[in-house]
């Protein structure tokens, strides 16, 4: 991770605006994802990594629009498959800083299995999930993290299902860095993203990002979030207890592991597409 060390020059050279594209976001005014976009650009500026050395990968959903709003390299991929794309990219191009943007539907439902195995593989990428506990883009269906009593026309009386607990699943599956942020605190979130990107291995950052259109109740999140009361731990048992018993609004680094990131035994001989085609020719 030596390439990410800050110097005075890089700090001066990069402004958050340098990472914004000219594409105007189409999120609803008040959406938490605006704050997350700001946190992304502020984090990239703090890291001082030029846009052409960053790849922002996503799947489908409101949150997954983020690559278009940055001028880094990006790939707006298939629903739930962003982690597979990102893993392939990072293994092939370890020199790139790879950040994956997802939502609770894209990441935990459609892409749920990719999530578990990305944690297990521990490739050096950063996975950012904007969790608003609803499918916003497709008009408010319950997602894996929706509360069981969320009452809508499509789920009268609520689903009655216990919400998925992504942080517990990430820890059990081998993620090397687990943190929770609140979108309404973009500078703190940016600082957390910097830590996550710098940490070797698979870093998972859940950002509570309110959906003001289908979950106006989430405007109260700003009064519910609070800093995690204890320092980050590298002990999975302690982290498990902490994550399983918290109230879901603990903000901070909840686990910082020391597992070595996965790296392929053999580096690609060439990145020339014609050479690669020959290698995989049947």
């Amino acid at each position, binding site marked *: 991770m030596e390439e990410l060390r800050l110097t005075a020059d890089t*700090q*001066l050279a990069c*402004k958050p*605006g340098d990472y914004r594209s000219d594409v*105007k*976001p*189409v*999120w*609803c*005014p*008040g959406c*938490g994802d*605006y*704050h997350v976009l700001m946190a992304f650009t502020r984090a990239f500026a703090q890291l001082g990594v030029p846009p052409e050395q960053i790849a922002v990968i996503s799947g489908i959903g409101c949150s997954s629009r983020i690559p278009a709003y940055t001028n880094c390299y990006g790939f707006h991929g298939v629903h739930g498959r962003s982690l597979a794309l990102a893993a392939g990219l990072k293994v092939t191009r370890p020199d790139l800083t790879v950040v994956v943007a997802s939502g609770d539907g894209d990441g935990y439902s459609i892409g749920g299995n990719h999530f578990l195995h990305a944690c297990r593989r521990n490739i050096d990428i950063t996975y950012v999930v904007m969790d608003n506990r609803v499918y916003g883009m*497709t*008009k*408010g*269906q319950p997602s894996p993290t929706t509360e069981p009593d969320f009452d*809508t*026309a*499509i789920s009268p009386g609520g689903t009655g299902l216990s919400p998925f607990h992504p942080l517990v699943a990430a820890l059990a599956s081998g993620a090397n860095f687990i943190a929770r942020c609140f979108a*309404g*605190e*973009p*500078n*703190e979130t940016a*600082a957390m993203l910097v830590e996550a990107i710098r940490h070797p291995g698979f870093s998972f950052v859940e950002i509570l990002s*309110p959906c*003001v*259109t*289908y979950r106006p109740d989430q*405007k109260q999140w*700003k009064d519910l979030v609070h800093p995690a009361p204890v320092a980050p731990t590298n002990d999975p048992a302690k982290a498990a207890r902490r994550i399983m018993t918290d109230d879901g609004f603990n903000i901070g680094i909840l686990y910082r592991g020391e597992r070595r990131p996965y790296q392929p035994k053999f580096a690609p001989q060439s990145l020339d597409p014609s050479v690669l085609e020959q290698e995989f020719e049947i």
Partner: protein
Amino acid sequence: MSKSAGAPKVSTLADLFGIAYQIEIDAVERYKMLAEQMETHNNPEMVNVFRDLARAEGIHAEEIRRQAGPIDVVAHALRVGRWSKGESPEEVDLGAAHYMMTPWHALQMALVGEERALAFFTHIVDTAKDPKVKQMAAEFVEEEAEHVNLVHRLLRKYPAPSESWPHDPDPPIAQE
């Protein structure tokens, strides 16, 4: 989280100018972002309001640059004008935006920002050791107090909307 938490340290006159300049630039960016949101959501009246606010903050930024004389405030702002926690005082709350908001709402947002900036510079006046910093911060306090008064005057022109302001005859509805 208090908006003054995580404020950058002001040790010199250059720091003060750099931070004051960055506060205005942050406000310009935030208002431009809100104008873009309103453009996307077809609220042209608010596009103009936010663009006007951005323009006003840009004029303040230029004024600070002029006052700073030989100090390179743009470069210094990049070095010192970062809030480690919360946001800079005049970065209005993006979460308070609504696609049917009115000028009154925008002015309420602006008022909060100007009052935070006033509190920030007042704190510097109260705590600065360097007399030059103290004197310049006092001038910024006067300017921010005038901005607060200006917003109050504008609020008399744009009174609070009726309670039905968010009523949308064709609202976004959950799937049925």
